């Protein structure tokens, strides 16, 4: 520890004003505060003691909460590949996992390198500290895209989202839209064929470094929601597989169990709001029940059981990791209930009523991101008018 500290102290002057590496100050700051808790103390006129929590720890916790879903996603990538190649009996657990690992790792790296690169540059330019927000976005992004998304597309989308959804608003804490979802929306609308298209996007098609299998001919595997949207009478996967997560889908979204592990951590540590999370599920379930009771039997999507709506697609992932993003969700406690409920409502509505879009979670959350300030406005206005009334009733 001392050696590292001494090294930091030794190289520090280079990065200070006038030092020859001053252009990389934000990078140095980033690494120093990453290695050591900053030893700056409160100034005169501010509190002398502080809670130990900081945004680094909060963001790290979210990343940790995402790890089970990420690891399972890697395994599922290998599993789906073996399944498509008809080689499931020849595949080993570790073989499938490492195949998935190799398939996902480049996306993770591209996402972090592009996103953090922009963050570092902006921090240097604005003479601010590096903000940790992208640690979370950077890991979420590879998890919400199909495994076959080309890296160059991912790089463009990440750059677009970080610059236009976050940095131009002022960085983490000032953005209106969830950065990871903007990345996905950018891909979704710019390269639709690579995001849903002919259903070949969900399963990795070729061997990587000798691991995995080459799928004989272009194998198409629709997600369960995709099947329903195409008019199938029922999904071909079992409810059990859907909960465990052994179904085609975006890399990290399939396993309800892995997501639930992350949800437990987020709720226990209070990083995510239980109000938002719960109300998303309640909103989704009630809407599904409503459609089930009212719509004509031809609409297949309307008549799958309500709990299946909650386990399929990105519903769980969105509810746990994206709807609860504190920056883009409603900030008033009452507002969180409405915000979450409407996300669930809109997600299921898009699924059921719009045959063009098999999945509605991304659009639902983005739409509610836009409306969250309006919801808060109503709650804050109520407080304001109460104060106003007190004045006039005097």
């Amino acid at each position, binding site marked *: 520890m001392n050696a590292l500290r001494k090294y930091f102290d030794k190289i520090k002057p280079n990065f200070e004003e006038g030092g020859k590496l001053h252009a990389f100050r934000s990078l140095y700051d980033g690494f120093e505060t990453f290695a050591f808790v900053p030893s700056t103390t409160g100034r005169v006129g501010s509190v002398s003691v502080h809670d130990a929590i900081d945004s680094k*720890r909060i963001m790290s916790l979210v990343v940790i909460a995402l790890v089970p879903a990420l690891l399972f996603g890697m395994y599922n990538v290998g599993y789906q590949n073996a399944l498509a190649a008809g080689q499931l009996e020849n595949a080993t657990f570790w073989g499938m996992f490492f195949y998935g690992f190799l398939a996902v790792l480049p996306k993770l790296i591209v996402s972090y390198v592009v996103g953090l690169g922009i963050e570092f540059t902006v921090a240097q330019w604005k003479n601010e500290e590096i903000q*940790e927000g992208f640690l979370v976005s950077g890991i979420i992004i590879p998890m919400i895209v199909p495994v076959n998304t080309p890296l160059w597309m991912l790089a463009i989308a990440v750059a677009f989202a970080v610059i236009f959804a976050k940095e131009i608003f002022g960085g983490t804490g000032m953005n209106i839209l969830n950065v990871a979802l903007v990345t996905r929306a950018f891909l979704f609308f710019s390269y639709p064929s690579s995001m849903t298209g002919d259903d070949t996007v969900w399963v990795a098609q070729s061997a990587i470094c000798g691991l995995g299998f080459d799928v004989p001919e272009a194998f198409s595997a629709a997600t369960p929601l995709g099947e329903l949207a195409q008019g199938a009478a029922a999904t071909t996967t079992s409810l059990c597989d859907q909960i465990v997560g052994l179904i085609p889908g975006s890399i990290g979204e399939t396993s309800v169990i892995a997501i639930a592990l992350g949800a437990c951590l987020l709720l226990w540590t209070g990083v995510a709001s239980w109000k938002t999370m719960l109300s998303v599920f309640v909103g989704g379930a009630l809407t599904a029940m409503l459609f089930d009771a009212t719509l004509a039997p031809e609409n297949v999507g309307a008549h799958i059981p309500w709990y299946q709506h909650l386990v399929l697609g990105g519903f769980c992932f969105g509810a746990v990791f994206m709807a609860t993003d504190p920056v883009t969700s409603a900030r008033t406690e009452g507002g969180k209930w409405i915000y979450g409920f409407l996300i669930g409502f809109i997600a299921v509505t898009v699924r059921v009523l719009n045959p063009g879009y098999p999945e509605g979670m991304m659009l639902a959350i983005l739409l509610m991101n836009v409306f969250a300030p309006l919801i808060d406005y109503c709650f804050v206005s109520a407080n304001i008018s109460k104060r106003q009334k007190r004045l006039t009733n005097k």
Partner: protein
Amino acid sequence: MCVCEKSVTFAQFLQNTIFYFIYMANVIKLRKGLDVNLKGKASLETVTVKASEKYALLPDSFTGMKPKVVVKEGDAVKAGDALFVDKAHPEVKFVSPVSGTVALVERGDRRKVLSVQVAADGKNEAVTLDTKGVKDAKSAVDLLCEAGLFAFFRQRPYDVTANPDDQPKAIFVSAFSDMPLAQDFEYVLKGQEADFQAGLSLLAKIAKVHLGVSVKQSAPALLTAKDAEVTVFDGPAPAGNVGVQINHISPINKGEVVWTMGAEEVIFIGRLLRTGKVDLTRTIAVAGSEVKAPKYAKVIVGAQVSDILAGNLLPSDKHQRWISGNPLTGIKIKQTGWLGAHHTEVTVIPEGDDEYEMLGWIMPRFKEFSTSRSYFSWLRPKKAEYTLDARIKGGERHMIMSGEYDRVFPMDIYAGYLVKAIIAGDIDRQEALGIYEVAPEDFALAEFVDSSKLELQRIVREGLDILRKENM
């Protein structure tokens, strides 16, 4: 972590209940807040400390006031003689706490008066005032101005030194502070009950007096105080903040003014009425994890803190932070610093600027205290005491988490939105969101728990200052 400082025994509980039923009905229960349990609480025992050779009155202790120094270096003064007055209201005097000679008028940048120092002669001579003629509000205010005790009034809005021309809607006194390491007023009150009551009675001549009492307090002098409406507050810190109490008893509207005064300062008034002399002796808590024997000490306002702490600090090769006041709302002072006029404790904690912790964002850090369950303080017993240093423990960010402030902000105000309005400089919105009701100290706990590490007290202070200038 909600920590009861004293475990309330059943007998005490019974006694309290009886008090409520017999004497009052006003019990306000607060749920939001946080008691921060720091190591080094002062035990209920008063020791004598060395009398200072010099005493100083700091204009900065009296927020919002522009001082006009009325003495020269070398002048002889008695306790109660004015050292400086408010430029805008020269009748408001800021008086010497001791008798002696003016040793120094210390000035800083642009000749700003930093302190007026008096070398004590040890004779304790004091100006004698006629206290008999107080009949109405006007004469009461005049007497307090003359005695230098009006200076201890603060007003809301703006949390600044009060203006004697105002007609306050009410006067609020909080009989307890539940900030970490704060003075236990019930202990200080012992033996001074009559003075306290006399002080309240005088305040009642000026305006209606509201006395906020903690549910843990049982002294009859508080619970059955005359000439004041007593309200009992039951809840974690900052229930003892007078601002929180005002918000629950009678919130301030635009255009209204209320005055507040520290409970011990009410005793000053009582002493004045009894003896005709100004006696600014306080019983302060000397506390903190770096203090050898945390106890109470009788000192005079403006005493040199190094005399108060002499021989009572734990030996340490690390830096220490001396604070006039408590670690949340107090002011960091130098080792040559003075006890601020309003401060009821002197605390010393480790500074921590020579502390380097590796990989803090992921390590368990068992010794740290946090309201977040990502640390492990939730595993420790509620009575566990923490040694916290003055590190901010993180970098400043934009407001990221929502609802953090509201958890420890027991007022009907959206704290986060108000802070944002202040940062944005939107005065209309600040007014609409209730800035007139708050003081920086009300944001101390929010600043403590803030994961974005914003300097909320400073932000609010600057916001109030700008607003005051605009409205003048």
